[in-house]
């Protein structure tokens, strides 16, 4: 187990380093000389040379990369082109909003989707199963930005139940929660259907396994059979799916953050791309990748915690 954790952590670092390298190369493949962009067309060659030396732009590419990678590993993501503010600082302010949104969205989707999938697998082709099927396809098919707009129209403008814009007052948990409801609903809705279908499919498969039949032959309660014997196995692929799908979820939050004008990493990326503020974009993308790697790791660890066979083979 410890060996596995160590191996996975090392692998995560490698993945993040590769991402850093890819980002670095992409940045360099953008046409144009960074010095003339930064100083404007009227800078003298002397000023340009001094700037290049200061920013290490006169050094070979690999040297620039090593500096960049070294800074990233130290938590220094560079500074904002306009305000000269530390990118790491900006992101650390924005990240909690995004994480709160992603967790809330996935959380409610899992709380609804997994039991729905279970119930429809226990009674396949019942009316509940059919309705779940329709809901699933419906929610998967509707894009989250449309859901966001409809949700605003219905709950905020017509019914006036929930606030539309922002993330709520700083320090006021209740207000922040109220502001979280609509975006989390919009982002998570597609996942309800997705999870329900996934859980239903793997539950149906597991319910046909011999050990479920044994549990029934030993007279165990249906509840015990479903939740202890079947779900514990059926949930494993779903956990992996959530881990992998987290990346998609992050891009889902971009829309929600823009539409609801919420602060967050997605919003930052959008705003800074429009402003051509590349250090911030770069830092935000990197943080997103790291987040993704961490979530995948957590998902894998959860699977190995639930399944002794996986634990053993590590």
């Amino acid at each position, binding site marked *: 187990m410890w060996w596995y954790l160590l191996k996975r952590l090392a692998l995560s670092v490698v993945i993040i380093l590769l991402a850093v390298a890819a980002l670095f190369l992409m940045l360099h493949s953008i046409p144009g000389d960074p010095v003339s962009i930064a100083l404007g067309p009227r800078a003298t060659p002397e000023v340009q040379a001094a700037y290049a030396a200061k920013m290490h732009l006169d050094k070979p590419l690999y040297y620039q990369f090593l500096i960049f990678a070294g800074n990233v590993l130290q938590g220094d993501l560079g500074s904002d082109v306009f305000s000269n503010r530390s990118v790491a600082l900006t992101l650390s302010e924005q990240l909690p909003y995004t994480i709160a949104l992603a967790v809330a969205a996935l959380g409610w989707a899992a709380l609804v989707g997994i039991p729905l999938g279970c119930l429809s697998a226990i009674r396949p082709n019942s009316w509940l199963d059919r309705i779940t099927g329709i809901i699933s396809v419906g929610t998967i098919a509707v894009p989250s930005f449309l859901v966001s707009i409809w949700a605003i129209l219905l709950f905020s403008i017509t019914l006036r139940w929930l606030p539309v814009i922002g993330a709520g007052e700083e320090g006021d948990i209740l207000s922040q929660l109220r502001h979280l409801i609509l975006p989390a609903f919009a982002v998570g809705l597609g996942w309800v259907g997705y999870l329900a279908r996934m859980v239903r499919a793997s539950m149906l498969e597991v319910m046909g396994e011999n050990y479920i039949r044994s549990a029934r032959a030993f007279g*165990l*309660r249906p509840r015990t059979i479903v939740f202890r014997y079947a779900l*514990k196995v059926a949930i494993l692929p779903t956990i992996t799916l959530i881990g992998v799908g987290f990346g998609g979820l992050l891009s889902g939050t971009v829309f929600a953050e823009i539409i609801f004008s919420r602060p967050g990493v997605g919003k930052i990326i959008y705003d800074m791309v429009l402003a051509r503020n590349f250090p911030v974009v770069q830092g935000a993308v990197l943080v997103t990748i790291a987040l993704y790697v961490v979530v995948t790791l957590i998902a894998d660890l959860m699977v190995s915690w639930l399944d002794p066979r996986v634990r053993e083979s590590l």
Partner: protein
Amino acid sequence: MTALLDIRSLNVDFRTPRGRVHALRDVSLQVPKGKIVGVVGESGSGKSTVIWTVTRLLAANGVVESGEAIFDGQDLLTYPEPRMQEVRGEKVSMVFQDPMTSQSPVLSYGQQMTDILYRRPEPDAEKMRRAVEMMRRVGIPDPESRIAQYPHQFSGGMRQRAGIAMALLMDPMLLVADEPTTALDVTMEAQIIHLIRELQREFEATIMVVSHNLGLIAELCDEVVVMYAGEVVEHGDVRDIFYRAAHPYTRALLECDPAREMTRTRLLPVIPGDIPDLHIKPTGCVFAPRCPKAMVVCRERQPDAHTLEGGHATRCHLLDPGLAEGPVAQAEHTAPEAVSEGPRSSGAPLLEVDHLSVRFRIMGALKARVKGVQEPFVDAVLNASLTLKRGETLGLVGESGSGKTTLGRAVLGLAEAHLGNVTFEGRDVLGLSPAAFKPLRRDMAMMFQDPVGSLSPRQTVRALVTEPFEIHGLSKGRLDEEAERLCDMVRLPLNFLSRYPHELSGGQARRVGVARALALNPKLIIADEPTAGLDVSVQGEILNLMGELQREHGLGYLIISHNLPVVRHISDKLAIMYLGRLVERGDSEAIFARPAHPYTEALVGGVPQPDPDKRRALVSIEGEVPSLASRPSGCEFHTRCKYATERCRAERPGDTVLGDGRIVTCHHPLTD
């Protein structure tokens, strides 16, 4: 004697897209208190349907049309589900066929066993103590610590012991065992049979055993019920069935069992034909289409039950009173004719395996270094040498995990050999690149273990049998002809060419496998468990077919199997494998007549005989196969050998050549 379970005229249908399958028709059987009753039948006989009907766990498309299952005075079939739930586990419990798949892989034995005890109003600690006690009772060593383990951490035999412990935990009135030893090796099978018998005496349990294995039934049961195609054709005392079988099906089934045939014949008896399509309710005797003694009346009218002496009864027209002058039989079901033993093995060796070793890495190089493991490998095959001539059959026998399949795969270049040589027709084939090996694969073919699983489910039989030609880019445009030729060869009707694997029976799928192996006229066929999963009545057909093809084409066979009786019938030579080493090699008949290695002796003695008077008092071999990762010192068999001495523990035996040319790796070969 009162019957604890009394099944009366049970009729069960399955709804399928193609209409109703009449799976059970008028099935009646009794399980008396304190007895072991065996229900024997081949696949499709409905024996499992009986169990699932009684426990009310039939698949959703199963319908009980009529009948009763009186258990302890009450009809189980009328119970509402919650009440039935109280019966299951508490009064009727089960031992399942495959312990690997019938125990939850993600829950520890402790958890699974305390779950079964949920109805007992006692603290968890007490339940756990009970579970540990039961684990100890079924012979699991060190139950206190092993109870926290998971099924995948147990070996096959131990898993089945744990399965029995789970079934006995609630002290049920009736124990139902569904093929309790089918997934096990011969040596484990003997141990489990012994355990069930012992426990039955101790708990005075009533047991219903369902199996296709006649040996198991003969060793274990007091009474036997024979089923065929959803009907009970005969029932009676175990001796009545095995010595005085009245129904032609029972007789034929007994004749088919290779374990019964003491003389080594080349042709095995078979029951021609297939099990009937049960979509149509049979009008006459259900066995008539395959019966060698069928009369006109058999096809017209269903036979009545005839009671013979002592509760022995059968349903057959041969016993009709009007037929006092005896059956209008065509011919007696004769013993198979002897086959002329032509010039069989001849010439230079076809295949030579010389000191072959295959090892598998068990951990990564870095991890091994960190953990200080010197050799992060296990040796699946160690120093194995074999010779096979043209037209000869070599049987490679061993328990699961003995490395026999790995050896076969290494010969074909499918597993990488670590040391040694493999020579095919005088040419060194080991370590050839896949491209260099490809033309050789035309001469060496493999028959895979699982007949249906090794065929792609989306391809027709035509595509499957001609696939080898396409792989090797041969006979373009003449594929249809080739497909028909191969079908003829394996005697598969030509209309099967357009079928898909799931539409084939086990025997038919096996024929397709044989056809695929034969497609390119190979010289050597490596057959991995060629009859595993086949019914006894079909098994003979495949073995006979293989023998015939060998005589026609001079094929060399390397047969890998754990089934000694089968191997015995078709092999000229035998090699017995234990923990990756060959422990005895030589002429098949000589080895069977007088095993020289104690392990061979145990294997030969481990086969349950279909003869109730030859029940063994003792288990021929105790314990389990040790782990490859920790090989015992000296002779690796010493941990399970009853003749082991100090020398065996300390010193590895060399090869001894006996008078008849046999090679045995033992300090004390059994020669008398």
